[in-house]
């Protein structure tokens, strides 16, 4: 099989970037993209720089962008890439500084990972010397997917919030954070949730789902972020604008069935900040686009919607458990910690 690849080459010394075309004439049909990169490096051009180690999707070194989409080179069949006679374009992953060719600087990713303290916090009720804390597999279900992460950076490569806001913690660090918050041995979940609710944390995720789409291990980082949000609610950590926004949807569903759209701005931003949105409101009002809060746009048959919220609040699927049950599509998993319902922070309506 003949394979042609276009690879973006860049030289940090000169700052020059160009596309280079490589051709391999005798490639096995079952070859991966990584096999091809290695052959190019060994047989044709020793200056081509890329990372690789395990060759089997475990080390997380070889993520690149292939025609724009991030994937592991070692898990990409090159025959499939060539379908339709295309010449695939191979470029480095995004949202990290470039070092050379297909190699990027991973340090910003590690920094964010360190900032979420990716280890269990010390606790006073640790088992004594020579003993261990036994955790049943069922208790680890809530963090099973997140534990599969191989730190490849595919999720941050295209994360839309990160692209426009480089300080955003991002899908990799946040799914690590859930790995800890969701661990039954972790004592400091409240403090962690407070920290994760800061400006560039949980609530800056824009739900583009590019991380879920790209992750080669099925971690589904966006879902991990939703679990953090849900657990923040269960723990009463709901002061952030993002949390207030989310809470208003719950209040709306319970009280009128549909979103109480006209009040959303005030409920999210508070009265003081909302004043700055008056020009926008007037613009919408002039177009008939600002629905008035009264009379309320109410759904029919509202009582069950109200009752449902009460009913589920009294069951053991609060917080992240409500997500875990669906994601495993298994209602029977034994779920972690059932905290007491928090005191509400503010009157909802």
């Amino acid at each position: 099989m003949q394979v042609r690849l276009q690879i973006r080459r860049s030289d940090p010394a000169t700052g020059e970037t160009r596309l280079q075309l490589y051709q391999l004439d005798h490639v096995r049909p079952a070859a991966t993209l990584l096999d091809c990169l290695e052959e190019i490096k060994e047989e044709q051009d020793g200056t081509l720089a890329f990372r690789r180690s395990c060759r089997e999707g475990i080390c997380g070194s070889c993520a690149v962008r292939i025609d724009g989409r991030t994937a592991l080179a070692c898990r990409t069949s090159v025959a499939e890439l060539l379908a339709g006679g295309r010449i695939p374009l191979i470029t480095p992953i995004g949202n990290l500084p470039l070092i050379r060719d297909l190699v990027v600087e991973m340090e910003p990713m590690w920094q964010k990972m360190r900032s979420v303290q990716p280890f269990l916090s010390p606790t006073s009720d640790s088992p004594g010397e020579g003993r261990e804390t036994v955790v049943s597999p069922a208790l680890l279900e809530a963090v099973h997917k997140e534990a599969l992460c191989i730190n490849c950076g595919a999720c941050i490569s295209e994360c839309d919030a990160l692209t426009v806001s480089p300080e955003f913690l991002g899908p990799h660090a946040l799914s690590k954070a859930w790995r800890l918050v969701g661990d039954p041995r972790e004592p400091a979940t409240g403090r962690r949730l407070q920290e994760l609710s800061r400006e560039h944390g949980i609530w800056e995720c824009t739900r583009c789902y590019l991380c879920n789409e790209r992750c080669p291990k099925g971690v589904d980082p966006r879902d991990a972020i939703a679990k953090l949000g849900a657990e923040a609610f269960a723990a009463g950590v709901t002061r952030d604008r993002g949390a207030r926004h989310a809470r208003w949807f719950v209040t709306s569903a319970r009280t009128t069935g549909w979103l109480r759209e006209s009040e959303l701005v005030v409920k999210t931003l508070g009265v003081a900040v909302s004043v700055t949105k008056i020009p926008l409101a007037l613009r919408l009002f002039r177009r008939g686009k600002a629905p008035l809060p009264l009379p309320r746009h109410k759904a029919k048959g509202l009582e069950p919607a109200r009752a449902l919220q009460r009913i589920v609040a009294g069951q053991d699927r609060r917080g992240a458990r409500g997500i875990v049950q669906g994601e495993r599509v298994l209602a029977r998993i034994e779920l972690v910690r059932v905290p007491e319902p928090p005191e509400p922070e503010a009157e909802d309506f």
Partner: protein
Amino acid sequence: MRRVAYYKGCLAGLSARELDSSTRALAPKLGLELVELENVTCCGAGDIQTADPDYALHLNARILSEAEQAGLDTILTICNVCTLNLRQAALQLGDAELRARVNENLSRAGARTYSGGVEVTHLLWLIARGEGLSRLKEIAVKKLDGLRVAPFYGCQLLRPSKLMGFEDPDRPTSLETVIEACGGEPVDYPAKTLCCGFPILLAREKTSLAELARPLEQALAAGAEAMVTSCPLCHLSLDAWQRNAERALGRKLGLPVFHLSQLIALAAGVEPAQLQLSRHVVPLGSVLAKLSSPLVEE
């Protein structure tokens, strides 16, 4: 006439009422009888899925059950976000044990139960292929005169693809197909599958507006005269907040944005008054003038 359960979601009953009215005006032409679901609520919008995910699942189960009880096997949505949330719930409720638990709660709450099997689809999916597309081609008699239209997909009709699965999430073609069928010329630009910023528009305005500015700028640079989107939430960002994006960018944009139903209805010769185009914040005057037919309202 194909009977489908019509779930219009929150916004089409509120700030995006023009989407509801144009969809209703369009449906008979497409051979669709819309049976509007009553006794339903918000799908959760991704917000209830975060704040109280178990509640969100139950709300969606109830929407699915209302369709089932009305004897309909398909729910038609006109919103990316509703589509994702309903499909996600429908998939999860395929699990008998989870469904049994949810149904028990639905009964206790006085709602009807759900036995599974309702399909959730978006208007775009119905008309971008097969029979729906043939029908669209038949009804699009008032061609859009080569109007250069930028398709905006946004996120949640494409991703996560394992829940959506209609087309390649990175190289979608459905909106382009529809634009062409309507006699328009699709304009290509990179940000058409990226985020409009809507979910964090209020919570993280700066980040959100930076996202919003990209498709608008790129579409204009690629020569678009208008944009079309399949999602009323994207529409709210792209249209109503466009002025804010302009302020953040420090330059004028002025790109008119159609709802999917409006664009098709225009091509199908639906009475313009039913499309309520005057409700848009960015005026559509330039586009309507170009279409050289007496379409302008008022």
